């Protein structure tokens, strides 16, 4: 890092700007692609930040450019919820600079002493579990249409809605809080011969996507700031390209989060009414032929 600072100090300002822009764009590409793997355990991230940002004004401007790139690395490190020391180092660095660019103030995590609990926003335990419930019932009923009406009404009355409906099947979505109760009420309408209930825990995915979204928004803010400072068309185009890519990633992640929230808020119940006189399963043939002579078709055959 020290050699890098020394090298940058020798370059003309225009070249310095180009080099820092290049480094920032590389970091933005990595963030946009979700490169949130294990933190690079290289010295550039873990190195004592006090070595960066010296007392001289010239060194300070050089360190700002370098720190921009390093900040991106740190974001990626923090994204994978690693060492709290990294947070502390970054917080120290923030305090060492008297005039930070506005964009850098977008850093939202708090400085914590080592060993203490991680920021709540980044702790999976502190996040409420995100569960998606789905149930499928196979039933035999009398008055299929009437029962389909009843199921639809049960859903609507609870604040849910109809998804689809056929002659012998129906799918509704009901508030997750009413899922068990409505499932019981639907099952009571007839003879249940098949019942499947699935629960998908998407908490980890939700948490991960939330963190990635936050980071991507920070990167977008920084790119927007860079765009304002672009000196020529070439620079502006480069930044806008990355800005568009990051924006697309953000929209995709927002959509994914919205979908998961929607799926968790409303549970799905699918009901199939069995067509009459259709066997449910092949039954063991007991050696009592008279069992086969049971049924309304025999009884009512006058």
């Amino acid at each position, binding site marked *: 890092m020290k050699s890098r600072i020394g090298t940058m100090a020798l370059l003309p300002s225009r070249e310095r700007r180009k080099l820092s822009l290049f480094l920032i764009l590389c970091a933005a590409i990595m963030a946009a692609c979700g490169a949130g793997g294990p933190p690079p355990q290289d010295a550039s991230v873990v190195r004592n930040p006090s070595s960066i940002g010296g007392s001289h004004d010239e060194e300070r401007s050089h360190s700002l450019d370098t720190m921009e790139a390093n900040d991106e690395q740190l974001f990626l490190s923090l994204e994978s919820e690693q060492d709290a020391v990294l947070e502390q180092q970054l917080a120290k660095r923030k305090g060492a600079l008297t005039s930070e660019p506005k964009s850098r103030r977008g850093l939202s995590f708090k400085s914590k002493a080592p060993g203490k609990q991680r920021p709540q926003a980044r702790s999976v335990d502190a996040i409420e579990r995100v569960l998606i419930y789905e149930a499928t019932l196979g*039933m*035999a*009923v*009398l*008055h*299929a*249409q009437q029962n389909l009406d009843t199921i639809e009404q049960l859903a609507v009355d609870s604040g849910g809605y109809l998804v689809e409906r056929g002659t012998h099947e129906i799918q509704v979505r009901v508030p997750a809080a009413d899922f068990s109760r409505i499932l019981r009420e639907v099952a009571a309408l*007839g*003879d249940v*011969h098949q019942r499947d209930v699935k629960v998908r825990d998407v908490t980890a995915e939700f948490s991960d996507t939330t963190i990635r979204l936050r980071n991507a928004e920070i990167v977008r803010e920084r790119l927007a700031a860079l765009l304002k400072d672009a000196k020529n068309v070439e620079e502006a185009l480069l930044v806008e390209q990355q800005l568009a890519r990051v924006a697309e990633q953000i929209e995709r992640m927002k959509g994914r989060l919205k979908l998961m929230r929607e799926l968790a808020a409303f549970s799905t119940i699918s009901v199939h009414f*069995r*067509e*009459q*006189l*259709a*066997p*449910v*399963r092949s*039954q063991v043939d*007991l050696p*009592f032929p*008279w*069992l*086969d*002579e*049971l*049924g*309304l078709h*025999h*009884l*009512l055959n*006058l």
Partner: protein
Amino acid sequence: MSRPVTKTFSFIRTDAGSPSAKWGRLSFLLVLAGMLTGCHSFTLFTAKDFVVLDESEPYDFRATTSEGLVMAVRHFDNRSSHGELEFWSTAIENKLRLDQGYALLGKKEVTTLQGHKGVQLRFGLEQDADAQIYLVTIFVTESEVFVVEAGGAESLVKRHQKQIDWSIQEFQIH
């Protein structure tokens, strides 16, 4: 087994537990199985609305109303099988529910005035938007299994439910 002999008597029942007087005259149907075979005989009381059918095979007894509500009785040998009430009721339930697609709408224990304990299965069947109810009541002794059936259109069964319940309650095994 010899062909059962049917004797028909008409009288007015006045004892407690009988159908209300408004039903008026009741037809008392007595079916006797061949005593030499050692089979149990049974007695099924039906309301005046029912008429006995001569050709009842494979049933031992069958009667119908003019609207098509039918009641019937069959009995089967249990001496070699030694099946309990739970076995036979479950076998019948599975046969109708899983093999034939009937909807099991209810299941309850019944006890006749004689004290015979049985199980009644209530099934539903809907064909061409026409709903039908099928009641199967099972009684088991050491030597025989008695199956009392009643069925017809849902509206008919509902209208005659009390009569059907009374017939089951009055069912006698000799």
